[in-house]
């Protein structure tokens, strides 16, 4: 036993001494601290950025907006660039955590990002002062054509008893309520108590039919044929179709959530100039294309869209739907603490049912 411990000790000490060196040198032009979603960038683009600019990228990842927020708000670590989602950006603006961007330093961000995406961003960043769109998408229904023989075009299929125990719902509060609110014809940013109660009752009625409430496992479960219908983000839909051609994605006629994840610079960013260089680099057509191909989430970068070689993807209705064809599209906005609490307590009633 003692020998084992001794062996372990040697191994780990050797490993620890390796960590000591290697990671501390900084780039000739300083550093940039990036805080992004996990697996949300092609690592190759980071290397290219470092080589071209001489700025060292210190890259960090988060798994939910809510796990990111307290770290930035409390200032435990100072990041230069962050990539939160729409409603979270609004919350950060409200709490005075972001600084205005200087678009003159970011020509690519001005030229390459489609105007309609800036237009959409106004839902959470009314004057387009704080954010540059990085990825966007819709939320819709993914269904297995072997199990669902009828045409799917409405959220109401998620309440169809034929598919009892074959339905996957989103487990995050806002996403789940979005489905019910849209079904009932309300706004997904509603804070009206009677509308929300209506939605809550619908969700409770749906619960016996639901196989599981999930976030990220929709993908794996749908590919494996574990369920017939799931609520999913469009970026995942492209990936699941590649793995299982029986799957079909549809945006329901009642409308849905159009979400945007955007680059922002927090107030306490130590390397503001480098941060703008980084954002601008990510907006370059070829770089945005690399990222799109790596993560399969739709890019708002028109230059990159033009560069896509695979015609199926370039014309894909999932990756680049013509949003003018749909009605009832909305983007989440921050509802304030009271709004959040209302949603949360209603959701708890659904979950504990």
């Amino acid at each position, binding site marked *: 036993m003692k020998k084992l411990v001794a062996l372990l000790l040697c191994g780990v000490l050797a490993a620890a001494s390796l960590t000591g060196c290697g990671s501390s040198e900084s780039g000739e032009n300083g550093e940039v601290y990036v805080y992004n979603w996990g697996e949300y960038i092609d690592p190759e683009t980071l290397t290219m950025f470092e080589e071209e600019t001489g700025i060292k990228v210190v890259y960090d990842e988060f798994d939910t907006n809510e*796990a990111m927020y307290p770290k930035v708000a409390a200032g435990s670590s100072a990041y230069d660039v962050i990539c939160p989602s729409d409603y979270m950006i609004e919350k950060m603006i409200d709490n005075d955590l972001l600084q205005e961007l200087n678009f003159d330093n970011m020509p690519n961000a001005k030229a390459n990002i489609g105007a309609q995406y800036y237009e959409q961003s106004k839902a959470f960043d009314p004057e387009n002062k704080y954010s540059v769109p990085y990825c966007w998408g819709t939320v819709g229904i993914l269904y297995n054509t072997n199990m669902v023989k009828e045409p799917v075009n409405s959220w109401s299929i998620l309440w169809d008893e034929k598919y009892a125990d074959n339905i996957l719902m989103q487990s995050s509060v806002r996403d789940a309520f979005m489905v019910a609110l849209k079904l009932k014809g309300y706004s997904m940013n509603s804070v009206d108590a009677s509308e929300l109660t209506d939605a809550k009752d619908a969700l409770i009625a749906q619960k016996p039919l639901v196989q599981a409430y999930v976030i990220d496992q929709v993908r794996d479960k749908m590919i494996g044929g574990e369920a017939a219908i799931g609520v999913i983000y469009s970026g995942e839909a492209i990936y699941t179709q590649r793995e299982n051609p029986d799957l079909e994605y549809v945006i329901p006629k009642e409308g849905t959530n159009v979400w945007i994840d955007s680059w922002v610079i927090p107030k306490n960013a130590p390397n503001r100039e480098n941060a703008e260089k980084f954002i601008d680099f990510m907006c370059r057509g070829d770089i945005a294309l690399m990222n799109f191909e790596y993560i399969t989430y739709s890019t708002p970068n028109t230059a990159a869209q033009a560069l896509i070689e695979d015609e199926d993807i370039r014309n894909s209705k999932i990756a680049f739907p013509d949003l003018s064809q749909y009605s009832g599209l909305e983007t989440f906005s921050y509802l304030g*603490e009271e709004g*959040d609490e209302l949603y949360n307590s209603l959701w708890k009633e659904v979950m504990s049912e």
Partner: protein
Amino acid sequence: MNKKLLSAPFLFWSALFIIIPLCMVFYYGFTDKDGAFTLSNIMAIATPEHSKAFFEAVKLSLLSTVICFFLAYPLAMILANLKGKRSSLIALIFILPMWMNFLLRTLAWQTLLEKTGVINSILGFLGLPALNIINTPGAIVLGMVYNFLPFMVLPIYNVLCKIDVNVLNAARDLGANEAQAFLKVTLPLSVPGIISGITMVFVPALTTFVISTILGGSKILLIGNVIEQEFTQTGNWHLGSGLSIVLMMFIIFNMVISAITDKEGDTNAL
């Protein structure tokens, strides 16, 4: 050598890294958004959703603790009876699975249990009826037992190893049969290990949220899920802290009771 002095590093450590953070939790738990004193975060446990989630969690974690105990005790006995160096190797083999990441292991159970998963494929191949356990309380209990079983085995095993064989032999010489020797000697002597084991299984099982999310399909709300949600989704740290305090009090209350039952402690001081 002054024994009191020996406790200094630990006391210092606990004061800095345990007591101060704990005070912060209490601060949040007893205040509202404006920083005014309130009991509402504590009383929130009484609302139907919260109390249901609480009792559900108590029920499932008690059940898994009991199952863990009945699985672990015989195992620990068998291991303790294997003489020599090999027994510690085998004991290590039983915690080795824990060196694989918790999330990966739990996801692996999902792969095994799913409707179209590995176990059902095997059952189907053998012409047996499918097992429909995924997304039920049963799957959550299974996940808890799986993840926390080693915490029950180790302390019991440690204690059993230390029991003097002569005491057992004496009991037998005095006419006790196997069952009596076990009930009158082995079991009482292993109580400290059992208590450690129960604490180490029951407490994490009570506060878990990952297992109920992955194996229970989030269809059953546990108090751990509620607390986690307050912190990560609503951002209402006050309510989250208040509910944690209730949970903490509940566990401390139980431990005090077990400490009173554990009278052994006094006579054996070093």
